[in-house]
């Protein structure tokens, strides 16, 4: 029952959040200078053509009307069509007139779906790398919060968090890929292309994990029940792995929910640099081309993913620690 109530409540809240986000993005795109129609029809097109196309596309209606129409379509699973990308997937070359009102433009939904798996693959690999590095460091640092493991954790965390991701990406491409030909970079032709961007992302994420884990584990190790467990007769291994880590993992899981948008932001940048054909790449290209429907679609997708993962995070946290409020 608690679960059902929780799920219903959070899904409703999530819908509100997605609605707010999409409204903000929708409004921004229409308030900010730069007429997409001018881009679509080409700089040379006469004004009356621009107006004609704009009217046909409904871009001259009041924003609320446009938003209502958009949301109406969204409910039926229709995110509209790209202004710029024809169905073939090729970007129309400049100057050539493409009628965006015709149905030969790519569906935004398809564009996004096509790229989601690649982005997920990258994010998951990065998370695995990050955990591989930060779990041992974080646990050691948390258990010996006065000794050298804590100092190492502190140093690594301060260093990693100070390296700009795009710069690290360039350096890694320069050395590992261009100079020494160890790992391929740029583009995507198989799993090997995930490794470098995933390393960059892992360097970006791991300081947060290390920091949270050392702090929370050190704090849990101070708590009375850990101390008392010794006199109750539990061996240290059991105390640490059975109880201390269990308690320390709750803040870690919560962190994932909170830092998720940072992670997603990192993915966008890294994809762009590595020319990795995921959502991030699509976002940057769409913004440059003012492809409004695609930008909106991505923003909504990401905020929905965010909401979903945060529900998941709270559920897992609750499963570990029943004191967490659902």
């Amino acid at each position: 029952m608690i679960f059902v109530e929780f799920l219903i409540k959070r899904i409703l809240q999530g819908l509100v959040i997605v609605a707010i986000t999409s409204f903000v993005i929708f409004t921004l795109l229409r308030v900010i200078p730069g007429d997409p129609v001018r881009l679509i029809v080409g700089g040379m097109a006469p004004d009356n053509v621009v107006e004609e196309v704009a009217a046909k596309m409904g871009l001259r209606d009041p924003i609320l009307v446009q938003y209502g129409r958009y949301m109406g379509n969204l409910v039926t699973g229709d995110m509209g069509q790209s202004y710029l990308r024809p169905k073939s997937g090729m970007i129309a070359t400049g100057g050539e007139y493409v009628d965006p009102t015709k149905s030969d433009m790519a569906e935004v939904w398809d564009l996004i779906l096509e790229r989601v798996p690649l982005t997920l693959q990258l994010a998951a690999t990065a998370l695995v790398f990050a955990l591989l590095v930060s779990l041992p460091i974080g646990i050691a640092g948390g258990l010996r919060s006065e000794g050298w493991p804590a100092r190492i954790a502190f140093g690594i965390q301060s260093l990693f968090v100070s390296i700009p991701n795009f710069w690290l990406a360039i350096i890694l491409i320069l050395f590992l890929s261009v100079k020494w030909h160890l790992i391929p970079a740029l583009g995507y032709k198989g799993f090997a292309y995930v490794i470098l961007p995933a390393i960059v992302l892992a360097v970006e994420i791991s300081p947060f994990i290390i920091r949270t884990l050392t702090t929370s584990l050190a704090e849990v190790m101070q708590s009375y029940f850990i101390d008392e467990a010794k006199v109750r007769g539990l061996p240290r291994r059991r105390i640490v792995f059975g109880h201390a880590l269990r308690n320390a993992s709750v803040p870690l899981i919560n962190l994932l929910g909170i830092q998720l948008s940072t992670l997603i932001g990192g993915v966008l940048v890294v994809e762009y640099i590595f020319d990795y054909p995921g959502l991030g790449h699509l976002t940057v290209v769409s913004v440059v081309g003012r492809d409004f429907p695609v930008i909106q679609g991505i923003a909504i997708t990401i905020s929905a993913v965010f909401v979903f993962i945060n529900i998941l995070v709270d559920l897992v946290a609750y499963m570990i620690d029943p004191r967490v409020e659902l």
Partner: protein
Amino acid sequence: MSTPILKVDNLTVAAGDNRIIDGVSFEVGNSEIYGIYGESGAGKTTLGRALANWLPAGVEQTGGKVLFAGHDLRTTGANRVTIGRDIAYIGAKPQSALDPTVPVGPQIVEKLLMVQPGLTRTEAKQRVMDLLHEVRIASPEERFYDYPTKYSGGMMQRAMIVDALCADPAVLIADDIIRPLDVTVAAQIVSILKDLCLKRKMAVIFLASSLLALRLVAGKVGVMHEGRLIEEQPVETLLTAPKTEYTKTAISHVPRIWSSNEFPEDRGRADDKPLMEVREVSRTYKVRKRGTFGQFNHVKAVQGVSFDIMPRENFGIVGESGCGKSTLTRLLTWLEKPDSGDIRLGGTSLANFSGRELLDKRREFQLLLQDPYNSLPPRVTVGRMIEEGLRLRGTPKAEMREKVKEAMVSVGLPTSIYDDLPNALSTGERQRISIARALVLDPKLLILDETLSALDQGEQSKLIDLFAKLQETKDLTYVFISHDLAMVRKVCNRIGAMYFGKMVEIGDNKSIFFEPKHDYTKALLSAAPTLDEKPFDAGELGFEPIQ
């Protein structure tokens, strides 16, 4: 006595140069409950931990031995003496003793399997379940899978008894196990523990800061002071014929309720009209029931309470935690309004006031807070804190400063600390600031919410004298809300006892303490931690502790 199972020989424990335990020796045999009395800071906890070979980091055993059945705890291997199996320990913090993220039952089973690897899980569970029955936890089958946070303090302490006893230890160390508990709950726990240990022929070291508790359980009692065992006697002898001055003083400090025939002076006059009238007030809290789509549990915190407070009297409200005292305090101080019923001040209902009028009316009744450390915001100077009430009401600066200084003098604070931050002040001084803050408003009624309970005996009696003096000079009336029966007995003219949100009995000092009528009042009084004889026989009333 047969060979002692636990022998402590000239034990010395130190943290750096600081000797915490200094040459302590004693012996405990099977089926013996050995009590150790000591105030906080005497070294009890360190002793208890040393006996379980469980000293915290930075604290070391520097001399002497602790022998369990002849084996030195420090040098013998874990195969001979297992902490948790042969020697068990129960502490004073039951509610933080277990992992909050794992249900209680499985944690006890886990411990049992760790210290007795031969058992199967089913056997272990059965044994824990049996013991949960034995310590009288209601419906243990359900409670087994509840999380520690769902347990009340008393229940949790019972679960910890199960945890300690499940592996059938030969020695049990019980360190101040009733300290965090309400008196009626503590009395139950002590008797349960005593029965279980005697049945199992266990040796128990019962460390406590309450002579009353020791009298209930212990045979022989050692008195600990500044790390030494200064005397050792059977408990009754100790109480009647203490050998040392220290013990004598300690016994004389135990509060008395029934030994004296004096009653607090009644300053009331024949033509007095009630200062505050509380009429049938009730307050119910809605607590969201989880998983029910917005249904609520209705917690009736205060139900139909009525009483009058007469001018210049000391009215006491007693009861244990959860009885509704705090809610009643919020109602009396008009921080919350009652759902039904009425509180009248000088004949007019408080509900009739609002805004500016209420602000004026508030001058007449003020609250003195409980926790001295959190009662003052840390970054605000003493003077600024005291004058807040006047400042709010737009009093001119010069007049304000005058009044504040006057109030500071009348509560015994040096005016030199006017511009100081409160950080360095003692608990007593902090409470005086709180009093001064109320006094600048020229109140008629002061409501004291456990104001004295954080203070030590000496400071407490100084403040009680101060209250009496202020009452004379400023015509004040006090409401003492407290769990400290001895203090209420000493100070209050009339007393109300609360239980489950209801005022079960109101009477004057004499009738409440000497001829209590309600069963709960009797139970509460009979569990009071005093050494004097009770004028009535409460027997086993078996009251459900409030949870």
